[in-house]
């Protein structure tokens, strides 16, 4: 199953080329790729994509898709009927809007706040720099969930229960985001440039917006994407603080739909697909940047 082009490159005809063929840019094992590598990767891809596909199958056929034997694995034409039922059962448009609003707000503001803090930690020396950064790192390892009860008490004493700011405001502080932006600031923003601008009389605010931020904008964009995804998908905290259905995010709406599972499976499956679709569309366009962003982050961390 090895592709013919694989064998045509240097090993087979080494002498015909006067100049050596350019080395492949990607690093890895030299030589052709055995067929079983593709087989296993394709299997992994099928496993990755199948549950989403299956959601769509059930959502487009209707509940009878799951009761037929053998199970039906190809889509039907009822998607809009099922979608309509989802909209009739829960205020799904409102939920989509709430999710989009909350996720976008947090993604944008927190990317900027994290870039600012990352800039300070990477490029400005100040007393307490290291200790404060260590605190940021330590907060990454303690899950916020274990203190949900006091968090709820605080939110309720602020009068924020059943409001969207109960999700937005606490979500703006991201230790991971600061860590991420600091790594990018210290590797991509050159000290010479900062120093030169200092000599020209720039203050640190100008340094940040004029020099540092433009350089790290791609990294901030990827951070924004990751934040958007995780806020969109967050469940526990919105589930605790939101009470009225018109304020629910899509994930909480899914719980309502899932409660009807014994009556109509297609409803929850359709809702799940519709809740994932916006992210899938975004991912289709910027997925490559997300992949390389995650891989970059790992390498630097």
């Amino acid at each position, binding site marked *: 199953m090895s592709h013919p082009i*694989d064998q045509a490159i240097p090993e087979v005809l080494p002498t015909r080329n006067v100049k050596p063929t350019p080395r*492949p840019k*990607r690093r890895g*094992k*030299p*030589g052709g*790729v055995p067929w079983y*590598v593709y087989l296993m*990767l394709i299997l*992994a891809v099928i*496993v*990755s*994509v199948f*549950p989403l596909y*299956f959601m769509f199958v059930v959502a487009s056929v209707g509940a009878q898709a799951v009761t037929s034997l053998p*199970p039906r694995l190809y889509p039907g034409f009822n998607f809009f009927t099922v979608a309509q039922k989802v909209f009739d059962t829960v205020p799904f448009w409102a939920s989509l809007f709430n999710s989009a609003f909350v996720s976008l707000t947090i993604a944008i503001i927190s990317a900027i*706040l994290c870039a*600012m*803090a990352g800039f*300070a930690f990477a490029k400005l*020396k100040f007393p307490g720099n290291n200790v*404060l950064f260590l605190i940021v790192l330590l*907060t990454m*390892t303690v899950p916020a*969930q*274990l*203190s*949900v*009860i*006091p968090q709820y*008490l*605080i939110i309720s004493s602020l009068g924020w229960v059943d409001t969207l700011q109960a999700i937005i405001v606490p979500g*703006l502080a991201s230790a991971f985001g600061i860590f991420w932006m600091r790594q990018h600031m210290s590797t991509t923003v050159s*000290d010479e440039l900062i*120093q030169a601008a200092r*000599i*020209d*009389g*720039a*203050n640190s*605010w100008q340094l*940040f917006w004029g020099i540092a931020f433009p350089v790290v904008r791609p990294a901030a964009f990827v951070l924004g994407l990751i934040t958007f*995804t995780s806020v*969109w*998908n967050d*469940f*526990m905290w919105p589930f605790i603080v939101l009470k009225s259905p018109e304020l629910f995010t*899509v994930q909480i709406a*899914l*719980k309502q739909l*899932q409660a009807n599972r014994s009556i109509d*499976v297609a409803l929850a499956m359709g809702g*799940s697909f519709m*809740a*994932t679709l916006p992210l899938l569309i975004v*991912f289709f366009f910027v*997925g490559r940047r997300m992949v390389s962003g995650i*891989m970059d982050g*790992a*390498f630097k961390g």
Partner: protein
Amino acid sequence: MSTATAPSRRTERPARKDPANTTIRIRNSLTERIAPYAYIAPFFIIFLIFGLFPLLFTFYVSLFSWNPIGEQTFIGLANFERLFQDPRFWNAFVNTFGIFLLSTIPQLLLALGLAHLLNHARLKWANFFRMALLVPYITSVAATAIVFAQIFDKNFGLINWFLGLFGLPHINFLATNVSSWFLISAMVMWRWFGYNTLLYLAGLQSLPREVFEAASVDGASGWQQFRYITLPALRPIIVFTVIMSTIGGLQIFTEPLLVAPESGITCGAGRQCQTLALFLYEQGFGQFEFGYGSAIGVVLFVIVVVVSLINFFLSTRTRKAR
């Protein structure tokens, strides 16, 4: 990141000959000294109010019999005494660790293997594979729980249909603790294996090609290369992913809540798949026992600290041993 970025310290010493330094000294005003703190202030203010304070407050509340609408009575460590004698707590504890082990170990091994495959130099469609592996990561836990509940359904699930083809009896995955661990772990694994694959792949790609070439020349087998080059080089990333999986594992909440909608917040009449996070929620927001719920939070915190310390010592010790 040398002193070049720290004009404030430098310019305090006399350096009159250099005109550039005078400019810096003018700029080095009070506002410029405060500026760094202003940049990090938003994080720390929000973190203090919604992160650190609730954490400390958890310890405080755990010492009370605290009803949100009733009264608050100081009861010392009574919540903890009760907790350690509560079979529901130990059930949730065992479930959480069972799910953690079942999901993390196979997942990270699978991710290592896949990263190894993806690292082939002439792999075609490499970007397609990487993106496809990240699709589960963008799917929400709630959606994952819903679709997996269907795939593992006791009557019409694909898994049971498949088992039936071989004449095997249907499995009700939610019937017992261990079988429900498999179901929950399958969801966790599915959502994270691709992400971890990409992290390992990034680690593999940071290794210089020449190391492997030299090893081949010296006659090292593929396995030996993996064992003595790849694995040690990936150790920091492996430690990182293990810590992340542990912390993630302690937070498993949505999967057991949504997989069995009819059984509610206990995840089955016998609490077959109730995790610690779900038990905390049940006590706090189902029973309104804020004190008892906070005691569970304190135990979770202690587990996080212990696990982090173990990981820390393991990683520093192995580093020294090398």
